[in-house]
């Protein structure tokens, strides 16, 4: 846990934002006045300045990118979303929902009815006022007939939307869901204008920037919206996004000043950034992880002793240290990271234990038998190297892993959820419910380990309708234990999100949910000239 001194230092060196500083200080028990008075001391009196241009280098810009919130594709595309649009509910660095286009909400008796009060001072880029019709229209588009929206799955839980005047929307859900506000903070549930359909070259949003130029896959430029409703930005005049797929080229572009913010840094390149005096690292501990998925319905991973052997044969500390260069944290064979408020400290940390691994692999009768492990960097940088570390540590326990590297472009369609043991990876989900339901629930399409446990599934449903935090945490704790004991999931590591910026760029906060302040740096970023 960071101390006050750490936080003040972090703020001083602009590693965290003022907002985040206040939040974290509050977590330490400081009152708002103490934290506030610290902020107003001369050392922190750096006020954001207007003007300047941000050129950001991103790792992927794709021809498939779209201004249509139902079909976002690359990271640059999601960033565009938070630059041009707003969501109804936003998400704080503590992963709690915060009011955004909706200024408040109330929950009905059993968490299946929600009433959202909308802000009244929001204008679209074309000057029209923002109303309840816009919300109903945009949420409906995800579930419309023939929709290809990746949000279709969880938006289908909305059974009915009605408005009550221009600034109240009522949602009726098919089943109770205490996490509904946080679902609305997803990167894809952004609000577009009622009736707007032609998203080809430009669009109308309510967000901090307007589209200046949009050519999918090659050029994205945005200009400041001076009528923005929020108060912490926007500051810069213009934001330009440049897709630079190659990591070396991206780092070079930052070091040479061609870009002043860059997305996604390889842990291997961190030393380059730290040695250079003109640039800073932006580090966000996150719940994004790399894992091994062992399928419970086929040979040889259906053997409980084999899975147990594998869990003891992974040297988690070594992976964090060698592959992720310390920019990550060890996993514990369930998907909830220590940054999550629902993380359960009572589940014993599993350690590398070659003797126990040898005992179980012998019991499974698979000692020194060659077993395939499909390894690739597709699930995230470092996942292939992590598998190589696993191969070494497992060999020391008499487990003979045969590393197969399949072609990258069909990894998700012909390796993942097909081969018994593969490396996989997931971005952080804002609440345990989304992670559990997508990757571990018995009937999910994405249940990569084919895990099926009645107790787990019923706890999941029960927690969904439980509004009380402590009670829910108890249930999620039990589920984390079940996964660690019986699951086919081995968390290799949680990886930090690493980005970088030029020294004179300020106002980018760290957020566990996504890079550059959960993709929202555009609003708060400013340049000290």
């Amino acid at each position, binding site marked *: 846990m960071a101390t006050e001194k750490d936080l003040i230092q972090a703020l001083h060196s602009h590693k965290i934002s003022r907002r985040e500083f206040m939040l974290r200080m509050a977590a330490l028990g400081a009152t708002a006045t103490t934290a506030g008075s610290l902020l107003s001391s001369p050392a922190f009196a750096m006020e954001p300045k207007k003007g300047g241009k941000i050129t950001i280098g991103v790792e992927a810009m*794709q021809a*498939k990118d779209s201004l249509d919130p139902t079909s976002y594709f690359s990271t640059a595309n999601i960033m565009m979303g938070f630059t041009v649009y707003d969501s109804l509910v936003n998400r704080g660095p503590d992963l709690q929902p915060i009011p955004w286009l909706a200024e408040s909400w109330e929950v009905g008796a059993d968490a299946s009815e929600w009433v959202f009060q909308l802000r009244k001072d929001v204008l679209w880029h074309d000057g029209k006022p923002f109303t309840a019709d816009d919300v109903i229209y945009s949420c409906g588009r995800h579930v419309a007939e023939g929709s*290809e929206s990746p949000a279709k799955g969880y938006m289908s839980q909305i059974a009915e939307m009605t408005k009550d005047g221009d600034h109240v929307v009522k949602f009726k859900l098919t089943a109770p869901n205490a996490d509904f506000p946080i679902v609305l903070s997803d990167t894809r549930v952004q609000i577009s204008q009622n009736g707007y359909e032609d998203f080809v070259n430009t669009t109308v949003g309510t967000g901090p920037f307007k589209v200046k130029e949009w050519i999918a896959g090659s050029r994205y430029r945005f200009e400041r919206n001076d009528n923005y409703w929020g108060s912490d930005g926007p500051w810069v005049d213009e934001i330009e996004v440049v897709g630079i797929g190659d990591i070396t*080229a991206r780092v070079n572009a930052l070091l040479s000043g061609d870009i002043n913010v860059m997305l996604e840094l390889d842990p291997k390149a961190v030393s380059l950034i730290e040695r250079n005096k003109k640039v800073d690292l932006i580090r966000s501990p996150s719940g994004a992880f790399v894992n091994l998925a062992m399928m419970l319905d086929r040979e040889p991973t259906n053997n409980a002793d084999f899975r147990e052997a594998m869990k003891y044969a992974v040297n988690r500390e070594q992976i964090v240290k060698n592959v992720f260069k310390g920019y990550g944290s060890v996993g514990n064979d369930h998907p909830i990271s220590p940054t999550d408020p629902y993380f359960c400290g009572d589940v014993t940390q599993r350690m590398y234990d070659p003797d126990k691994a040898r005992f179980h692999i012998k019991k499974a009768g698979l000692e020194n038998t060659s077993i395939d492990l499909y390894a690739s960097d597709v699930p995230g940088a470092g996942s292939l190297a992590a598998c190589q570390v696993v191969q070494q540590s497992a060999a020391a326990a008499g487990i003979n892993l045969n590393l197969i590297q399949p072609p990258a*472009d069909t990894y998700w369609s012909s390796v993942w959820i097909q081969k018994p043991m593969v490396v996989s990876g997931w971005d952080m989900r804002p609440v345990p419910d989304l992670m559990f339901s997508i990757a571990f629930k018995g009937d999910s399409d994405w249940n990569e380990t084919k895990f099926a446990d009645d107790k787990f599934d019923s706890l999941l449903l029960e927690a969904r309708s439980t509004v009380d935090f402590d009670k829910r945490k108890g249930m999620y704790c039990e589920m984390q234990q079940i996964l660690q004991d019986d699951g086919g999931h081995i968390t290799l590591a949680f990886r930090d999100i690493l980005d970088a910026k030029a020294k004179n760029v300020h106002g980018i906060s760290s957020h566990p949910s996504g890079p550059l302040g959960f993709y929202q740096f555009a609003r708060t970023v400013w340049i000290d000239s």
Partner: protein
Amino acid sequence: MQRLLLGIAILFVVSLLIFIGTEILPGDVAQAILGQGATPELLENVRVRLGLHDPAPVRYFRWLGNLVSGNLGASMVSGADIGQLLGERVWNTFMLAGVTALIAVPLAILLGLLSAIKPNSLMDRTISAVSLSLISLPDFLIAIVLVMVFAVKLSWLPAIANLRPGLDFFEVARMMVLPVTVLVFTVLAHMVRMTRTAVINVLSSPATEMAILKGVPRWRLLLVHALPNALAPIANVVALNLAFLISGIVVVETLFNFSGLGRLMVESVTTRDIPVVQICAMIFCTVYVLLNLFADVISIVSNPRLRYPK
């Protein structure tokens, strides 16, 4: 004329081969678009929209029909018009290749001639050693070293070529310096060696001996007697290298973030965007056919025996 028809036939065969190739690749565009987020229902929606359920021959001839009638079609992944998608990239690629050729071809011929004047002289050995070491170093290594020195350390030149409309000539020129340098290094050696060999061959012919005996000066011997006779093989190797510059510079495009055709094609293969792959292949193939045709014409024009067949 006959050659031109043959060229069109080759284009057709290539388009068929590319189509078959992309059909054999595992996975389709729907899976590529949806990636980890695919569900059977979403896959079905995408496949129906793109008409992927039609049999392969139907899809091929639908594409061919459209192409013949001048309709390049739309990208399967983004839905964007392919003509629009290509426009800027074709221009960028041809500009990069053109500038490189303008520098590399005269330079190569000059260096080739200089080495041929006195084979195995110090000059010849130096030129050979330098050009051969440049071709032996992988282009990505040269590119990274140049960027480290000139962009990162000295800040003289940009590290990436972020071309966009509205840049003035000077800005574009600054962005082009590093990629063009790397490409010149890559194609130079081949052309230098070929020029040298061809000219030395001619110089050792009886005709040259005759000229020397007649008292023709050394420079005139080289430029007027030897070079025109060596033109045919040089033209061939130049054509080959120019074609390479249009189609095979993915590495340089990637490292300098240069928005060109090579990268577009590789990206489109990854996403199984067959219409885009096809058009790129067509462009590359056309360039090959035309350049070869051009090289043949030059060798005919430069050779009186071929110009006036008996």
